[in-house]
C-alpha cells in the first residue's frame, strides 16, 4: 500500500488537522465527534446546509464548507458513513434559528445515520436524498440509485440560496428541483486502496475498466475492455442523456469529474469530447466544472454529471462562493 499516512486508524483525524491548519480563515474542525464547520457559524437567520459522508472523496464535503455553500460537513471514516452523533453536533453548531437542511447521498448507511440524527436533533430539520447515478437500476424494492457527482452541484446551488436568505422550505424545494434535474455516471480505470484494508478494492486487467462505478471503490455494473476517450465519454453520456431525458434545446451544466488519480490533462480532453457531443445534440452547455471534486481516493477514472439548468439555478451557480475547493466572486 503506497500512501502518505501514519496509521490507518488516525488518517481522517490527521487529515482534518491539516485541513484546519490550511484553512483556518474558512472553517473550524471539531473532533469527537468530527465536524467541519464554517468559521462564522452559526449565521443568524440563515438556513444551515449540512452534508457529510465517508472520507476519501475529498474535496467533498469539507472542501465545500464556507460562505455560499455548506454550513458544516460530517466526515466519516474512509468510505464509511458518519454517525448520527456527528450530524446532531453539526446541526447544533450551525443552526442560526432558521433550521437545517441535510443533504444526504443515497447510501443505506448515510440515509440511516442522517435519519437518526434528524430524529434526535433539537432544531427544525429537513432532509433531501440525492440519487443521481444512472448506472444503478432503480426500483422501490432496492436501495435505489447512489448519490454521486450531482451532490457537488446541489451543495453549490442550494448553499447560495441559503446564503441569500431563502427559508428552509424554499431550500428544500430547490434541492428537490436540482435532484430531479441532475444525472451522473462514472467509470474506473484502476481500483483504489482503502487505508484500513491495504489492498485494492477490485482487480482489473490492463485492458479492462469498470463502467457504472460509484465513489466507494466498489466494482461497477460491468467490466468491459478499455477504449478510446471518445468511446468512454459516449459510454457515460448516452445513458445520462437517455435517462432524464435531456433533449435538444436544453441548457445544462456539464461537470467533468476526476476520480482522484486521473490527470487534469485527461479530464480536459474528455471534457472537450463531451462538449462536442452535447453540441451535436443541440444541447447548450452554459456552465461547466472540470476537475477532481468528488473522488475515490487515488482511483483513476472519471464521471460525467449533467444538470438541466433554469435561470434561477444559473444565478445561484454564479453567486459568490468561498470554500477551500470552490471559490469565486469573493
Amino acid at each position: 500500500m503506497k500512501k502518505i499516512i501514519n496509521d490507518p486508524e488516525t488518517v481522517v483525524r490527521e487529515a482534518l488537522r491539516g485541513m484546519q491548519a490550511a484553512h483556518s480563515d474558512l472553517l473550524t474542525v471539531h473532533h469527537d465527534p468530527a465536524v467541519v464547520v464554517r468559521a462564522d457559524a452559526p449565521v443568524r437567520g440563515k438556513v444551515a446546509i449540512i452534508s457529510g459522508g465517508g472520507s476519501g472523496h475529498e474535496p467533498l464535503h469539507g472542501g465545500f464548507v464556507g460562505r455560499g455553500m455548506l454550513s458544516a460537513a460530517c466526515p466519516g471514516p474512509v468510505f464509511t458513513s458518519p454517525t448520527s452523533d456527528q450530524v446532531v453536533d453539526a446541526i447544533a453548531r450551525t443552526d442560526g434559528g432558521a433550521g437545517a437542511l441535510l443533504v444526504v447521498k443515497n447510501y443505506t448507511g448515510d440515509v440511516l445515520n442522517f435519519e437518526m440524527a434528524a430524529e434526535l436533533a433539537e432544531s427544525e430539520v429537513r432532509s433531501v436524498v440525492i440519487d443521481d447515478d444512472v448506472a444503478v437500476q432503480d426500483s422501490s424494492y432496492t436501495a435505489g440509485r447512489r448519490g454521486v457527482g450531482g451532490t457537488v452541484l446541489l451543495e453549490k446551488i442550494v448553499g447560495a440560496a441559503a446564503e441569500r436568505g431563502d427559508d428552509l422550505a424554499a431550500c428544500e424545494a430547490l434541492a428537490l428541483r436540482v435532484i430531479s434535474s441532475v444525472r451522473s455516471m462514472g467509470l474506473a480505470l484502476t481500483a483504489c486502496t482503502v487505508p484500513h484494508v491495504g489492498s485494492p478494492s477490485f482487480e482489473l486487467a490492463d485492458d479492462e475498466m469498470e463502467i457504472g462505478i460509484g465513489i466507494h471503490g466498489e466494482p461497477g455494473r460491468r467490466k468491459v475492455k478499455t477504449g478510446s476517450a471518445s468511446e468512454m465519454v459516449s459510454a457515460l453520456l448516452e445513458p445520462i442523456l437517455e435517462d432524464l431525458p435531456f433533449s435538444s434545446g436544453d441548457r445544462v451544466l456539464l461537470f467533468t469529474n476526476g476520480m482522484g488519480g486521473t490527470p487534469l490533462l485527461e479530464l480536459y480532453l474528455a471534457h472537450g469530447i463531451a462538449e462536442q457531443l452535447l453540441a451535436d445534440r443541440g444541447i447548450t452547455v452554459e456552465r461547466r466544472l472540470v476537475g477532481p471534486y468528488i473522488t475515490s481516493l487515488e482511483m483513476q477514472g472519471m464521471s460525467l454529471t449533467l444538470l438541466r439548468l433554469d435561470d434561477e439555478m444559473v444565478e445561484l451557480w454564479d453567486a459568490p462562493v468561498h470554500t477551500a475547493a470552490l471559490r469565486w466572486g469573493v
Partner: protein
Amino acid sequence: MGCTAADVIAAIRAAAVVVQEHRDELVRLDQAIGDADHGENMRRGFTAVLSRLDTEPPDTPAKVLKLVATTLISTVGGAAGPLYGTAFLRASSAVGDLAELDGDAVARALRAALDGVVARGKAVVGDKTMVDALTPAVTAAACAEGTAAAALSAAADAAAEGATSTVPMVARKGRASYLGDRSAGHMDPGARSTALLLRALADAAAKA
C-alpha cells in the same frame, strides 16, 4: 439459572473479541460486494464498547444492551451502525428491568431486535442482508425451550444457516445491490457478522 448483568457483560466482551478476530474476514466479504469496511466498522464499534464497559459497567441486562446500542450508534457509522444500534436498543427495551434473562427473554429480545432492523432498513428475507440471518434466529430462539444459553445456541445455529443462504442471493438492499447479478456467489458480510455475534453470545452464555 438466568443471565445476570455480569453474564451479559461477559457475553458482550466475548462477542467483541470474536468481532476483532474476524475483522479481516468481514472486510474481505465486504470487499467482494460492498466497500470493504464492515469488519473495520464492527471492530471500531466493539472496541469502543469494550472500553465503555470498563469505565461504566451497567448493573442490569437492559442497561448493558443500551450501552452497546448507543456506543455502536456513535462509533460504527455505515449501514451497520444504525442497524445494530437499533437492534440492541430494541432488545434493551424488550427485556425491561429484568435482573436475569432466561430463554424467553432472549427470544423476546431477538424478536424486538429484528423488528427494529426491519423498521429501519426495510429489508425482507431474500434481500441478502443481516435480516437473512436474524429472521431464522428469531424463530429458532422462540422454539427453543429453557435457558438463555439454549435459546442463543439455537439462534446461532439458525443464523449460521441463514448467513450461508445469502451466498447465491442477488442483493436488493445495501451497497451490494449496486452490483446487480454480480452480487451473487458471495456471503453477505452483515449476515455473517450476525451469525458470529450470536455464536459468541451463545458460547459465553453456556459458560455462565
